[in-house]
C-alpha cells in the first residue's frame, strides 16, 4: 500500500488543455516535493511546499499544499508537449527520508 496515492495514474491530453494531478495521503507531512522525470532521465525537483494551504507558481504550473498537509495538487495551464513526463510527489515526515508516490504519467499530444 502506497503511503502517497497519486491520481490519475495516466493522463493523455491535447496541447493547450489544462490538467490537474493529485497526491493524497492519510498522513501529515512536514513538507512535500514535486518532481518531473523525463524519459531516460532521473527525476528533477520542481517545487517544495511546506506550509498548509500554500500555493506556489512556476510559470504555467501551480502547486497547492492542502490545509491539513495531507494532500497536494499540481495544475498545469495550457499544457505543452514539453510537459510530457512522469510527475512524482514525495513527502517528508519529521525530517525522515522521503516517501515517493507511484507517479502520474502525462502525455501531451500536439
Amino acid at each position, binding site marked *: 500500500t502506497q503511503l502517497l496515492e497519486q491520481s490519475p495514474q495516466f493522463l493523455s491530453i491535447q496541447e493547450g488543455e489544462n490538467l490537474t494531478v493529485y497526491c493524497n495521503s492519510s498522513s501529515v507531512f*512536514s513538507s512535500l516535493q514535486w518532481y518531473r522525470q523525463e524519459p*531516460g532521465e532521473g527525476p528533477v525537483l520542481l517545487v517544495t511546499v511546506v506550509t498548509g494551504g500554500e500555493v506556489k507558481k512556476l510559470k504555467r504550473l501551480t502547486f497547492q499544499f492542502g490545509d491539513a498537509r495531507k494532500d497536494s495538487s499540481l495544475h498545469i495551464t495550457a499544457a505543452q508537449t514539453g510537459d510530457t513526463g512522469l510527475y512524482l510527489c514525495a513527502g517528508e515526515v519529521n525530517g525522515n527520508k522521503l516517501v515517493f508516490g507511484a507517479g502520474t504519467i502525462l502525455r501531451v499530444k500536439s
Partner: protein
Amino acid sequence: DVKVTQSSRYLVKRTGEKVFLECVQDMDHENMFWYRQDPGLGLRLIYFSYDVKMKEKGDIPEGYSVSREKKERFSLILESASTNQTSMYLCASSRTLSSEAFFGQGTRLTVV
C-alpha cells in the same frame, strides 16, 4: 553544474551473476540513496547511507547490499542476480535526509 553520475545506462546480466552498480556525486552530500523504479510502483528505497561506511536498509533490501567507502561514492551490489531484479535503478544524493534529492540518470538492468 551539480551531478550524480551512474556508471552505466544499460546493463544486461545473467541469472546468478554478481552485479555492481556505481554512483558518484560531486555535491559533498552526506546522504545517498538507491531506489528501484518499476511501472505502477513508483520509487522504492533499497538502501541509503547518511555517512561514510554507514548504511541503513530501506523498504526492499532483500537480495541487495551496498558499500560506501568514500563520501562521494555509493555502490549497489546484487550478490546473485535474479530475473525479478530486472528494473530501473536510480541513485540519489541529498544534503539532509529529506531535502531536495538529486538523481542520476538511472541504470536499466535486465537479468536474463
